[in-house]
């Protein structure tokens, strides 16, 4: 079959182009990834008590994770297309992380000296980032599988973005079980866990995203 034949095969009865399917595919897989993280948190750690949800810190964690997932989701959606502008979603993502680091820093400055170490390390600093990353991996897998049905051409960047999105979703689920109570802790160890998930996305994307 020569190229002109192929062209007539492709164009014959082609109909209008399908509407962009990027959001309609990314949103369900993100929701599923979040639910898996909730299930893992509930079954392996146990969800927080009802009164925890009256505490500001719980909402700081949930808010950070959600804002980060939305910003990374916008970046991932942009990278699912061959041509798109990345500056705005990248800046939004940086602003979300920057805001959380600032909150963590201010909170650290306000804590009395004898509690500073607890504010940074809490009870679970050794495991927090790793658990968060592990709970994000199902979401990462799903997002990469969806992304490869679209048209990403900047695979490494798409890997980072997918990892940050998955990390945000994993953190959103883990925040429902995480016992820590310091914004400084969240700023450091949540961010590290999300970064690690991004790093995994970056490493496997060149293979996982081939289309």
């Amino acid at each position, binding site marked *: 079959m020569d190229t002109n034949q192929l062209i*007539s*095969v492709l164009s*014959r009865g082609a109909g209008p*182009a399908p509407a962009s399917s990027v959001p309609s595919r990314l949103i369900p897989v993100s929701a599923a990834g979040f639910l898996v993280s909730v299930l893992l948190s509930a079954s392996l750690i146990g969800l927080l008590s009802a009164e925890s949800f009256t505490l500001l810190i719980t909402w700081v964690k949930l808010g950070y994770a959600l804002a980060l997932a939305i910003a990374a989701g916008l970046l991932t959606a942009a990278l699912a*297309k061959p*041509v798109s502008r990345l500056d705005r979603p990248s800046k939004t993502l940086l602003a979300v992380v920057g805001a959380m680091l600032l909150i963590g820093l201010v909170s650290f400055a306000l804590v009395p000296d004898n509690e500073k170490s607890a504010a940074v390390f809490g009870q679970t600093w050794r495991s927090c980032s790793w658990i968060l990353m592990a709970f994000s991996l199902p979401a990462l897998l799903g997002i990469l599988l969806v992304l490869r049905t679209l048209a990403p051409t900047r695979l490494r960047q798409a890997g980072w973005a997918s990892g940050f999105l998955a990390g945000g979703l994993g953190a959103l689920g883990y925040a429902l079980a995480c016992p820590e109570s310091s914004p400084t802790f969240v700023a450091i160890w949540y961010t590290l866990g999300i970064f690690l998930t991004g790093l995994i996305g970056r490493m496997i994307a*060149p293979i996982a995203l081939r289309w």
Partner: protein
Amino acid sequence: MTQEKAVHSAEIRLKPLWLAAQSGDEKAYAESLFLMAGQLRAYFRRRMPFLANDAEDLVQETLLAVHLQRGTYDANYPVTAWLLAIARYKLVDLWRRRGRRDDLHDDVGDLDLLPMVGEQADVHASRDLSLLLQALPVSQRQAIELTKLEGLSIAEASNCSGLSESSIKVLVHRGLKRLSELVKE
């Protein structure tokens, strides 16, 4: 004419056709793909001058990708930019694939043994898509043959095969998708 100017003038011809194609004008779609094939041929040949057949393979592979992914085109950007982003990706993907299997530099080393390629507008690829079509599952192949090769409408193909119109569409889409995976192997 500089390369930028050439890209610019190609864009002026291509964009209105492509927009018409996107909204369902079949003739404009065929014309767009034809113009795109020319751009792709120039793009790939310049980057792999000793591998004319491979270049045509890549043209076809990229056209299939264009067809399957045309929903990701955003009218705010030049069509040419969108097309060349896919082309660049497909080229890098080919280098990567080759890098794993054999050493591309062999071809450059055997330069003297290769016939001069010249500028012939050979549109024949080294692989035969109609053979690849035989590798598809029967239902997908039939759907493609009825609608694409014999030129039946979706409704006629549906009558002819006893399948619903939507399953015909799905089979054609899946078949083309499978085809685009096969051309990479």
